[in-house]
């Protein structure tokens, strides 16, 4: 059998031709269709910190209080304190450096636009997109009020004055510099032998044993932590 010879005679491998195109200058494939203005309007609901995306509308703190009591308080509590494990929306100031930080709209969120955007797209949980623009302005105003960022019940939030609101924790977010952490810089050639002075000791055991439901262990909750 002349396999070797044949292999030689045959052409080289066909490389994975770069079929995909340069998105900034490529020629189009002619797939899909142009979206209509109504379609874009229906889905383009995002709101940015600079106010881009805010619809025309307005609502007061007291309007918001009414809606919140009806549609939000069952989960988030009358004062945004959070029932059971549903999210807490207010308070937690000065807890960010503590052992159990309480991250709320007031204590943590850097931008008000995120409140408008998120409540409008995802709340009330289980009946998303059911609120009018004015409802969302009112609820956003009320969440500011719950967090003492606005203290006047008659305060009216609108697309006009929206970007004038500054959030307490704005400006404390820093860029990703994990790659500069010292342990990464140190570890290019990690230790292999006798890396610790003496025998290693156990300093802590798992807090939640037998986490599997059928394990029959402690399922009441952990000492701390959260998945998000």
């Amino acid at each position, binding site marked *: 059998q002349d396999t070797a010879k044949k292999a030689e005679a045959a052409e080289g491998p066909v490389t994975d031709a770069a079929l995909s195109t340069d998105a900034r200058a490529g020629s189009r*494939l002619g797939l899909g269709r142009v979206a209509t203005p109504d379609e874009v309007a229906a889905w383009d609901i995002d709101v940015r910190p600079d106010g881009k995306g805010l619809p025309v509308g307005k609502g007061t703190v007291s309007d918001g209080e009414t809606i919140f009591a009806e549609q939000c308080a069952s989960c988030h509590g009358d004062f945004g304190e959070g029932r059971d494990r549903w999210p807490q929306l207010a308070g937690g100031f000065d807890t960010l450096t503590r052992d159990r930080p309480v991250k709320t709209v007031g204590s943590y969120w850097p931008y008000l636009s995120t409140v408008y955007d998120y409540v409008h797209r995802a709340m009330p949980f289980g009946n998303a997109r059911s609120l009018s623009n004015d409802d969302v302005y009112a609820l956003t105003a009320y969440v500011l009020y719950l967090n003492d960022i606005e203290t006047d019940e008659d305060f009216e939030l609108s697309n006009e004055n929206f970007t004038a609101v500054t959030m307490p924790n704005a400006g404390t977010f820093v860029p990703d510099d994990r790659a500069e952490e010292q342990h990464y810089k140190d570890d290019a050639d990690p230790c292999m032998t006798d890396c610790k002075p003496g025998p290693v000791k156990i300093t802590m055991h798992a807090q939640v044993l037998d986490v599997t439901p059928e394990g029959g262990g402690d399922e009441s909750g952990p000492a701390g932590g959260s998945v998000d």
Partner: protein
Amino acid sequence: GAGLAVAAGTRTAAAEGDPKITELQDWNRYLGPGVDAAPYGLPSEFEKDVVRRDVPWLTADATSSVNFTPLHALDGIITPNGLCFERHHGGVAEIPPQDHRLMINGLVDRPMVFTMEDLYRFPRENRVYFLECAANTGMEWRGAQLNGCQYTHGMVHCVMYTGTPLRNLLNEAGLKSSGKWLLAEGADASAMTRSIPMEKALDDCLVAWKMNGEALRSEQGYPVRLVVPGWEGNMWVKWLRRLEVGDQPWEQREETSKYTDLLADGKARKFTFQMEVKSVITAPSPQAPVTHGKGRTVITGLAWSGNGTIRRVDVSLDGGRNWHAARIDPQSFPKAVHRFYYDFDWDGSELLLQSRAMDEKGFVQPTKEALRKVRGANSIYHNNGIQTWHLKTDGALENVEVS
């Protein structure tokens, strides 16, 4: 941990032999189910414990929660679709593919709408990638918490995706040069959104409609999701319905309230997109005790990095004092999990098992202490610290922290 110490290789059967051999078994005699019994097959009934599991008390409701891949019971680098962990914020959207649309708008020459049929006509790629939730191992920042690899590390899976490079879709709309960021939005009840730098979008992102050869599972975004290789799972927007091109990030709820990493001084890192070098011993581990007693023992685990391939994994039996090079299984890919093994003879004494990965860029997985030193214990996300399992003399294991 019902460890039973049996000297390896010296066991003998009673002279008359093991009845499982000397007596005729039913399956050797009677016919089993035929080829029409299972049009879509399922695991053996004897594997019924190998399932995704959730921890009800972690969240208020199962519709905005997480379940975990049973890493302790798996091997290789491919996660079966039925066991890929789930994380969603408004339950699993169940979308008829013929009713799904994908829109591109914003800083483009013309806003576009694509049906699924349109997407299937773009040039396709198949790529194996890991997807890790940024909150994987997040419960462990304050110390050992959950007693099982499924729970400590089970928010990672690895499958082969089929889709088209995201840049191909953007090209159809015509990217304006001012476009620096991309907003990806889902069609589910949370209308999930994330901002993605355009450089990444044009690099290796895929718009994918298949996983491991078949249609995406609903839990993973059927009919179409974003694939953002090496970056945190929350950005891999599921049920993808819209891509908007913009000149700055949107600062959405999942990139401000969530997925920002609070440091000890109260500052928080934002846009911590990339998943760091990480590894874990999947077995033995608390849910997968050593049942064979002393002697030949296989340690296995997974290693991965958003930087690309894993160059090296070391295993320690003594809590990090001494390390041994593990064997990395060769069939893997950049930004996919890598499977490693360390085979050794267990003398039956207590051990403190650890693994430590190094990626192709030379980043080495840190200890949990090193991480806490710079990040504190409130980060929630991006805990890639070295995990310790305490192997006891009876073969049981526990999640511990060590000096």
